[in-house]
Structure formats: C-alpha cells, structure tokens
C-alpha cells in the first residue's frame, strides 16, 4: 500500500511547486489583449526590470473579476494580488467589504511638483460612489466604431444612426450588458442626455429603452470581451460596433483597418486597481502600486493605448505613440473634439437596479 500513495504525494508536491507560493510572484488580473499589453509595457516590464526578484503574472480574467474575487474573499483564500476593475464593479466590491481600503496619500506617490495623490487624481475619482478602495488608472470610454466601406454617401455620426437600420443597414455589435445600452437606446429615442436616468427610473422608461433595443435586436451580435468588437468589425461580421475606445484605436491606427470612430454620446468610465481584502503580500502590492500609478507611468500607458490618464499631472506628459510616433492627444476620449456629448454613468442608480435589469436584460435576450 505504501508506494501506492506516491503518485498522490508527487501530485501534491508538483502542484505546490507549479501553482503555489513563490514569495516573489505577483498575480495581476486584467482584461487581456491590447490593454494588458499596454500595462505590461508601461508598468510591469519597467517594474520587473527595477525589481529583479519580482515576477508579475498576468491573469486575463478581469471580466469575471467580481465573481472570482467574491469567491476568494468569502472563502478566505485570496490568490490574486491586484485586480483591474471598472468603477461600477469596484463600488460593489468595496461596499461588500471585498477590498482593502486605500489611503491615497500613504499608498500613492505624490506628483513631481509635490501635489499629494489625493489632490492630483482627477477630482472625485478616488472616492467614486462614496467608496475608498479604488485607485483609478485611466479614463476610457465605450463608444462606437463603424466600417468605412459599409455605407455609400452619408456615414453614421450620431447615436440615433446606430439604431437606424434603414439608412445604415447591417449587423451591429453591442456589449452583452444592460448598462450603456439602455441609456443609448433612450437617447436614440429622443430623450435628452441629461434626463436619461430620470426616464430610466420609471418602469415606462425601462420598457421604452427595451422597445428601442427591440428594433435592432435581430441585427445585433452581443460581445462579452473587449477584444471581440474590433475583430468583428475587421472581419466584416458587423458594420457598427460598440467597443472600448482604446481597442478601436489599435484596430484603426495600429492595424490600419477600415474603421472610423463615432464618438457621439461616448460613455465615460473609469478603470483602475483594487486590492482584494486579505491579500497576503500587501507590502509588495503597495510597492508595485506606488510605482505603477505614479505620474510618469500613467502618462506612459497612453503611449500604447488611447486611454486618458487619471492623474492631472500625467495629462500634459501624454505624448506620442511608442511605435508610430503619432500624437496621442486627438485620440483621447477626453479630447474636447471627441467629448462634445458624453454619457456619465449614475453608479449609485445602477447599484440599485443592476440585479433587476440584468435579469430583465438576460430574459429579453433569450426570447
């Protein structure tokens, strides 16, 4: 019997060696694709070069971030060190006590001119939704791209055009979530941007939004991962797609695809770092975060992908694309030319209605 257990012991030993606790590994969860690549180049690689003992492992499962984070924290076995999250998820996670609280001025580096972090980050972003767990990295937007060869004559330029199948026939790609889609549907249906949440707060408003989405339902391909919509556009599977602006940038500018931006009512959002509550390597994590969110690093990321840095002191440092040498400023969602009409999410409203509208949205989809 004795030797029979050898495989088990070996399996255990091997599993420990392969998956277990190297003090120097930092598992950083992010969104994969062009986005993780930009973080790799702007944050991870320089950090690893300066700290040879540290190995950063990229985990691309940020889209299941909230679920896995909750499972880890509830069970007290946190294996993630730093997680990239959008603001809405970070608010939920912070409210549920799943995250470490952040004291900006002791955790984060001051700006080169000495302005403390709490004053340097864009106002309100460190305390989004009244929470204190979120370190913003970028301002990004979910906006639209369309194929330039799909339509003769007039090209789509407004959110209403996205819903206009008659003038602009062809498949659309939208994110498989109610957030943003419902707001856009109402705006396309004639609701003034500033009244969107007032209308959405009524049952009739929700029904109206779904009714508008109904008009294009048969023509929509639903995406779940940020890499999909540019791919769908590039393959010609769809003619208009909502996507993260940085992904569209890399398809248009880096890969030279026949795609153009449609910035009308781009939905602004924040993306940033959070630390799971009970993370075991807190000192190492804080050291990394202090580095990765300093003024220069945030400005550097914009060399690789067109997302706006979340620190005021980084904004003037945004320069040229790392490889192509083009000026990045016109491609930023915050550029006044692009930001004529913007949608600002009401996170608190969504925290109340997310469960209900997710249900309704999924039910609507499956029918």
């Amino acid at each position, binding site marked *: 019997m004795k030797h029979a257990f050898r495989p088990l012991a070996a399996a255990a030993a091997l599993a420990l060696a392969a998956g277990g606790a190297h003090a120097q590994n930092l598992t950083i969860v992010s969104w994969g694709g062009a986005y993780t690549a930009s973080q790799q180049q702007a944050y991870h690689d320089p950090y690893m070069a300066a700290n040879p003992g540290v190995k950063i492992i990229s985990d691309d499962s940020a889209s299941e971030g909230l679920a896995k984070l909750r499972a880890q924290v509830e069970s007290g076995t946190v294996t993630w060190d730093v997680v990239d999250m959008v603001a809405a998820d970070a608010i939920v996670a912070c409210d549920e006590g799943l995250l470490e609280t952040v004291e900006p001025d002791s955790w984060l580096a001051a700006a080169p001119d000495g302005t403390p972090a709490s004053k340097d980050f864009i106002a309100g972003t460190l305390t989004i939704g009244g929470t204190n767990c979120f370190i913003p990295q970028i301002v990004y937007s979910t906006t639209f791209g369309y194929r330039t060869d799909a339509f003769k004559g007039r090209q789509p330029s407004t959110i209403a055009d996205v819903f206009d199948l008659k003038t602009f026939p062809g498949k659309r790609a939208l994110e498989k979530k109610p957030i943003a889609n419902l707001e856009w549907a109402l705006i396309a249906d004639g609701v003034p941007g500033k009244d969107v949440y007032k209308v959405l707060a009524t049952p009739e408003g929700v029904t109206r939004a779904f009714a508008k989405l109904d008009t294009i339902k048969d023509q929509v391909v639903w995406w779940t991962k940020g890499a999909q919509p540019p791919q769908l556009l590039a393959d010609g599977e769809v003619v208009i797609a909502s996507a993260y602006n940085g992904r569209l940038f890399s398809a248009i500018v880096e890969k030279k695809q026949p795609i153009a931006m449609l910035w009308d009512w781009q939905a602004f959002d924040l993306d940033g770092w959070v630390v799971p509550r009970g993370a075991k390597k807190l000192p190492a994590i804080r050291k990394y975060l202090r580095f990765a969110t300093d003024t220069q690093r945030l400005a550097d990321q914009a060399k690789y992908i067109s997302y706006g840095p979340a620190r005021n002191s980084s904004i003037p440092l945004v320069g040229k694309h790392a490889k192509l040498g083009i000026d990045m400023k016109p491609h930023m969602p915050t550029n006044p030319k692009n930001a004529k009409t913007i949608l600002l999410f009401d996170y608190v409203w969504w925290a109340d209605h997310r469960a209900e509208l997710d249900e309704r949205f*999924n039910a609507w989809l499956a*029918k």
Partner: protein
Amino acid sequence: MSTTTDRVMRTADGLPLKLSLQKALARSRLRAALLVLPLLGFLVVAFLLPIGDMLFRSVDNRIVGSILPRTALAIQGWDADGTELPGEAVFEALVRDMQAAAKERTLGRAARRLNYEKPGMSSLFRKSGRRAKRITGPSWRDRLIGIDKRWADINVWRLIHRESGALTGSYFLSAVDLSLNDRAELVRQPEPRRIYLTLFGRTVWMSGLITVLCLLLAYPVAYLLATQPLRVSNLLMILVLLPFWTSLLVRTTSWIALLQTEGVLNDLLVFAGLISEDGRLQMIHNKFGTFVAMVHILLPFMILPLYSVMKTIPPSLMRAARSLGATPFTAFVRVYMPNTVSGVGAGCIMVFILSIGYYITPALVGGRTGTFISNFIAIHVSETLNWGLAAALGVLLLGLVLALYLLYDRIVGIDNMKLG
C-alpha cells in the same frame, strides 16, 4: 466441546459452521468494502460535498441574519401583517446593526441580498449605513426616517422580516418565474422578467429533438455495423470512434469553421450559385448551430449502445421472418426493431441526459436563442453573481437529470453501462 446431542456442524476449531461461515462472509464483505472505501471517500470530498455545498446555497439565507443580528431578533415580535411600523426597539436594533456592519464593511452584502427582492434596497442601505454613525437615541425611528423616508415604508420592514430567517424559498420561486409581493403573496414575475420556465422548456424540447435526430442517424449506421462482416465493421467502427475520442473543442471549432457566415459551407453555397453573396445563411449562433453541433457530438453515444444490442440479434431471426412470408419491411419493423428496444432506450436516455446538461457547445455556437439552462447557471455564477438563484436552477436541473438516471438504471442497469 461437542456433545452427542449437539447436531450443529462444526469446523475444525470447534466453532459452529454457520457462525464460521458468517464470520468469513463478514470478513470478505469488509474486504470488499475496504477496496471501495478509498474511492468513496475521495468522491465524497472531491465531488459530493462540493455539490451539496452548491445546492445548499439555493436555500441558504443566513446573510441578513448574520449581518443584522439585532434587527433579525427584534423584528420577530413585530406583526408583519398589520399596518403599523415596527416599534422603536426595532429601529434602534437596525441602527446599531448598521453601525457595526459599516465598521466591518459588510453592510453591502445584506443590502445586495435584499436588493434581489426589492430594487432600491441597495441605495437605501448605502445611504443610511454611511449616516447611521451619527445617530444616537432616543428617537431612533424619527432619526432614521429623517435620513431616508423609505424607512417609513412598511413594505421595507416586511421584506426584512421575511428574509431574516436562516432559510429562504425565494431563489426557487425566482427559478420558476414566481416571486412574493410586498404582502408575501405568491405572484408571477412581471412578463419581461419571466424566462426560466421558457428556458427549461427550451432545454427539454431541444434536447428531445437532438435525441430523436441522433436516433434517426444512429439507427441505420448501427444496423450497418452490426450486419457487416467483422473486418468491414471494425473499419467502419473507427469512423464512429474517432469523433468520440476527438476533443469536444476541436469538434466545436470545426463546426464554427464550417457554419459561420464567412465559413466553408456558406462559401460553397455562394460558389455553387445557390445563394447570393449578400444572402449568406446564418447557421451559427442560433438554434440551428446548437442542433448541428450537438447532434454531431452526441451521435456516437447513440450508435454504440444500439450497435452492442444489434450485434446480439442473430441474422437467422430475419431470415425466419422472411421465410414465413414477411416482406423485408414487415420483417424489419415487426421482428428486428422490437429486439432493439433496449438499445434504443439506453441510447436515448444517455443522449438526453448528456444534452440537457450541456454547457460548452451551446455557449460557443448557440448565440442568443440556442442556449440552455446550464448557460444561465454560468451567467448567474460568474456575471450577475446571484449564486442563490444559480444554485436553485442547478437543483432543478440536477433533479431532472437524476430522475432520468434512475430511469436508465431501471431500463439498462447501471452495472451494464459500457464505453466505446
């Protein structure tokens, strides 16, 4: 010591034979059980406990009671059917609970739980939790209502009263498109949110059709395999076993390559002039895609049991029927087919069981309308995070599968299960 009056047979060491045999039997029973025990123990930990744990989440409701313990206790004495708001003591208990939970940062969990039942609870708790720090007695009620007037809504208190117990049935109600209204009466979900009955229905009818299609395709092939000489049938068998042994993802990938709008089949049809370039068919990311890929994947599970039954039917049976004057058709339908019923039963139940629980293939090729209940379980686990509802859907699905498993045991016998 045996006496002459003792007629009991004894073994060499003087024990009664019966007893000795019983002992030997007990020993060998123990030995057999000891062989099985390691696996049983392993499966209990690695498999059965996890499933039990998951299923328990469908009724587990300890969250409100554990985060708001004082309130849960104090509200028991309140008459939820009446028209009066709870007394000062309950308001005080809630404020103290919120103060404690805000410190622990756990209030959000209770809020999330209640928000499933009544949208808006989340913001109510957030707002109140943040301001509750400053509340002191004595007029707890007025202070709390001063923060948010929703605390004067009796239905909020009814909800807390209802969900402060350790167990709940509300996830199961949601799983069959029902809910409790403010007065705790059973009502159907509003029309736009009804989905699960439809989805269970769809899972069952699509699986049924997949089973029937598999049977229709498998029957002729199995018959061919069973009636050919061994050399030929062994060769043909490889054509059945190769897909069986090929990775599920490989086969799903193949169907994506074949069926997508810019894929091989559409190209062929355009090339043949059957459809126009703009008229490419949508064959994937819908029910059609799910049907085709699932039938392909499950077909071997139908062919193999049919074949093993057909192999045992002697060819002389058909010849006898023919010689008694039956036409080939009659002979086949009246004599051959009844002999294959057990194989048909085994194959159908197996395919149906596998089909209703399928996740990967519908997720990849099913799109919006070709997805199954499993896909919704996954959505609730990893996207909407409503784990209680996921568990309730899981219990219902598992119940269905186990019922079929028992049926399979009745018809085929679990010990007779064969592979490849």
